[in-house]
């Protein structure tokens, strides 16, 4: 099973929750928008963190695709 994170940059409000809470998975990218640092998530810990990031994203811009 491939697990990936997708950020909807139209919905993103640049709150930074993902970058601050999960720096291993997210970083600031261009135009003050976050970007995903790991293309495919294999470790359980990463998958858990990705789901946590989706949960706290204030604009609902993060989706974890499994």
């Amino acid at each position, binding site marked *: 099973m491939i697990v990936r994170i997708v950020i909807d940059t139209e919905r993103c*409000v*640049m*709150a*930074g*929750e993902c*970058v*601050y*809470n*999960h*720096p291993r998975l997210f970083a600031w990218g261009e135009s*003050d928008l976050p970007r995903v640092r790991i293309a495919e998530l294999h470790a359980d810990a990463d998958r858990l*963190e990705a789901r*946590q990031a989706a*949960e*706290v*994203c*204030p604009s*609902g811009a993060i989706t974890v695709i499994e």
Partner: protein
Amino acid sequence: MPGLANEIDPREFDSPEFQRNPFPLYKRLRDHHPVFRDRFHNRWILSRYEDVTAAFGDNEHFDRALYKPDGPYEFGSSHVFGPNILEYGNSDRHRWLRNVVAGQFVGQSLNAFVPAIETIVAELIDRVGRSGRVELVSEFTNQFPIRVISNMLGLPRADEDRFVGWYQALIAGLGFGGEHLARGIAARNEMWRYLDPLLEERRARPADDLLSKILQAELDGQRMSTEEVKGFIALLLAAGGDTTDKAIANMWFHMLYTRADQFAEVQADPALWDNVFTEMMRFDPVVHAQTRFTTAEVVVQGRVLPERAMVTLSLGAANRDERVFDDPDTFDLHRSDLHMGRENRSARYRDGLAGHLGFGMGQHFCMGYAMARQEAVIACQRLAAALGNPRPLHPTHEGIVAPSIDSGGFRAPRELWIEFDPVRG
């Protein structure tokens, strides 16, 4: 002597005048001493919006806790709460502890909790009764958020009154020291003894509540120690209770006394309570200062702060920075230069406007930002609708006060008497 008028005597920070009205001194700091070396309290103070936001955003140089040169953090041991999440600085452990609970306070989890918030508001409004007057602080704001958070934790509702009592003793201990501190510690110990069997029970039989979630969370196969769990609970009771408690009191204070003229608008359009919340968080937030420690030499406004220096980030001063906000000393629900919507950890907004710093920003941005707003706005809307024609009982008020603002004292009115027409059956 000419030229000395703008000098600041650090003892001014301990004066009753400053605790009552810190804003004139904040302005002197911003205008004349944007990087103030306070030798008396052995710290530095930053007060301009630009510098405070830069420091909040710079984890590399500004840490929440004092690190030891050889590695781990030096924990403050005198804390009423015992060890807790706030003191883990910029570490992975801090992030992990926060992520265990952060999801509870935003998005779907928060929405799912709104009915419980509504129930508790309705119960308290019922208690306020029909006498035609209410002392809002003791009868409502002191009671409300603490009941919400204990409900969220999954503490037995039958024991809620006891929690309110412990909570009040705890926060008095935080704010005033002395005999209050002794009472606060006694209340904490009593609460912890009460919690012991409850923690055991939830460990054995997890329920669908925050307490069980905290108990079950693991990092690298390790769970939180019992001391850590208790510290976490005490922190949530205070951070999730006290701040929102005082935010609601401040919102009403501003509507009754600071801008009674704008209150009529809010009564006509209750959605404006969101703006009351936002502008209150800028104008005179519950928390005025945050402490950081430099991890290396750092230059601010051309001055060098040494390594391991204590730095007060005066967000109360930054929020009044005339370099960012027009006419900053006026409370205005329709500010065009303030981001009025929900706050961000990054303090950057798509509308390009500046945000208030009442929740801090960056690594230690308030975890409960969404819940605080939600609770405060619902509480104010329901109260305003239930109390007929609410108005101040007294024509004048001593104003918003706080013990030791710049060492974390929370600002709020001591009492707030409201008179109203008893309209309900």
